């Protein structure tokens, strides 16, 4: 043993180095099994949504009054609803609407929040104070109530829901962006750039923005589930997407009237929604814990 030790260092480093690198690259999925499972579930939804016409066994809006309100059978795995529409097909197509609305709404909210947050963080003085109170005012209204108010002005429909939910999410994004801007603004490289008399907008574009965009991207992934929940809540209230769109919230609301004898009508789209939300929450938590420097324990 003692004779062989001099050899060990010469052979170990080459094998050890890629091994540790490999381990740290794999570790996110190994260290967080729930995160991995949740990510697989979320990706499965995405695939089902993209390939809905290929995956769904029936046309989601095809009505068949011979098979109204059938419990789950081999022919209709999730049963049928009060119009004889196949619930499984509607759930699969519903993933499309949920994800499209969720993703685009979050992007609108993030864009709006970026603009207001940057303005509030950079301006300083009285206008910063006023902008902050504006953000407070937006935050004083829960996103669903705000979305209801926007729907009241805009009307119903998929595009209107995307805009309403997006606008209602500006507040939280603006607050995070402003917080990040405040941290970046006092950094030495910003001062250096200003001393080099680089134009102000260029400093913002080249030095402030890149430092704000990444935390914002993390926020975007975390808040997709919130957007999906708010949009399906609007549909559930009957003021979001209009029938016969295969939207989960709408399907749950339709099934509510038949809950005593056809509980699967609400339960199937409901569990589809719940599973996606739980998966997205776990993925979001994982991403935040991995990438948020404030939450990271090890340096």
């Amino acid at each position, binding site marked *: 043993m003692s004779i062989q030790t001099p050899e060990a260092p010469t052979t170990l480093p080459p094998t050890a180095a890629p091994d540790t690198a490999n381990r740290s690259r794999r570790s996110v999925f190994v260290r967080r099994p729930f995160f991995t499972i949740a990510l697989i579930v979320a990706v499965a939804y995405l695939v089902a949504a993209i390939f809905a016409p290929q995956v769904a066994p029936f046309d989601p809006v095809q009505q068949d009054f011979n098979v109204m309100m059938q419990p789950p059978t081999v022919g209709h795995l999730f049963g049928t609803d009060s119009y004889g529409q196949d619930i499984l097909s509607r759930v699969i197509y519903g993933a499309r609407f949920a994800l499209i609305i969720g993703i685009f709404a979050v992007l609108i909210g993030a864009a709006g929040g970026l603009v207001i947050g940057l303005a509030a963080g950079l301006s300083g003085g009285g206008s910063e104070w006023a902008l902050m109170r504006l953000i407070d005012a937006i935050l004083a209204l829960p996103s669903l109530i705000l979305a209801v108010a926007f729907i009241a002005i805009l009307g119903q429909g998929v595009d209107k829901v995307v805009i309403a939910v997006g606008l209602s999410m500006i507040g939280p994004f603006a607050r995070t962006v402003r917080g990040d801007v405040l941290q970046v603004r006092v950094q030495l490289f910003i001062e250096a750039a200003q001393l080099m008399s680089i134009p102000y907008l260029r400093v913002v574009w080249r030095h402030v923005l890149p430092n704000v965009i990444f935390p914002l991207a993390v926020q975007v992934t975390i808040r997709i589930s919130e957007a999906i929940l708010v949009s399906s809540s609007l549909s559930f209230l009957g003021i979001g997407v209009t029938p016969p769109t295969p939207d989960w919230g709408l399907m749950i609301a339709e099934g509510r009237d038949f809950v005593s004898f056809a509980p699967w009508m609400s339960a199937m789209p409901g569990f589809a929604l719940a599973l996606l*939300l739980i998966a997205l929450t776990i993925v979001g938590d994982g991403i935040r814990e991995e990438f948020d420097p404030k939450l990271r324990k090890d340096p």
Partner: protein
Amino acid sequence: MLLQALGKIAQTLVVLFFVSVASFGLLKLAPGDPIQIMLGSEYSQESYDSLKTELGLDQPFLVQYADWAVRFVQGDWGTSYVARAEIFTYAFKEALPVTLTLASFSLAFAILIGVPLGVLSAVKKDTIFDAGSAVLALTGTAFPSFLLGILLIWFFAVKLQLFPVMGYVSPWENFWLGIYHMILPGLTLSTYFIAMITRLTRATLIEVMEQPYITAARARGEPSWRVVWVHGVRNIAMPLVTILGLQLGVLLQGTVLTETVFNLPGIGQMLTSAVLGREYLVVQAGVMMTAALFIGVNLLVDLSYPFLDPRLRARK
């Protein structure tokens, strides 16, 4: 401290001002010309102009806003044509109490269940109980409340027939019947908060239990229940109150959904039918009440810190 409080109140009023301008602007943005709607399809330009002057719609925006704000504060909120009532009576005296009853009932529920659950998870850290309650808490925060409500109706009201399916009885008029009708909606709404409070209590209590004063209390030989429930739990009050204040919005939007599931005549139903009936005045009233409630409660939370934490009292 008084100065600080006054500053916070002033700040709150400014936020409220912004909200009111925005919700007044909401009315202005609403599609359709109110004068055309009031006059119907046939009218002369003269009657159009005279009505416009009469309603003050020819005035500048700020004058119109001031006019509206004065009337709003006085309780003159306009008339709802769908509910056939003064909006103030309909929204403030009828819908708001229902929502507040449901919200406070759920909050009480959530604290009574969530705090003990969180304390137990913190004390039994890294055991099966802790892991189990962590999974439940995660599911609870992500599970859509309206689905949970329907499942509870299906199981407890339809299958077991233990509770009424829907309907509202005011606990102020018939206490026990009111509570009976509130149990399923309250459970539906509080699930998210039970989960959230459990997670928060666990996380903060674990930190608190590592503090020197806990070690000191243990060293004095105090029984372990006293260390946890008196010295420990007292120190989680502040983060708990803060988060609950900030999460009030979630509670209010939860009531909107829960009311729809259980057919409770609260702000949620009011808002939904107002949107469908294009009654912008009612939507505006709902928005204003929600915002005022949220802002007011958070002001109270801010002002309550000195009472919860003696260390803040000493500081000037």
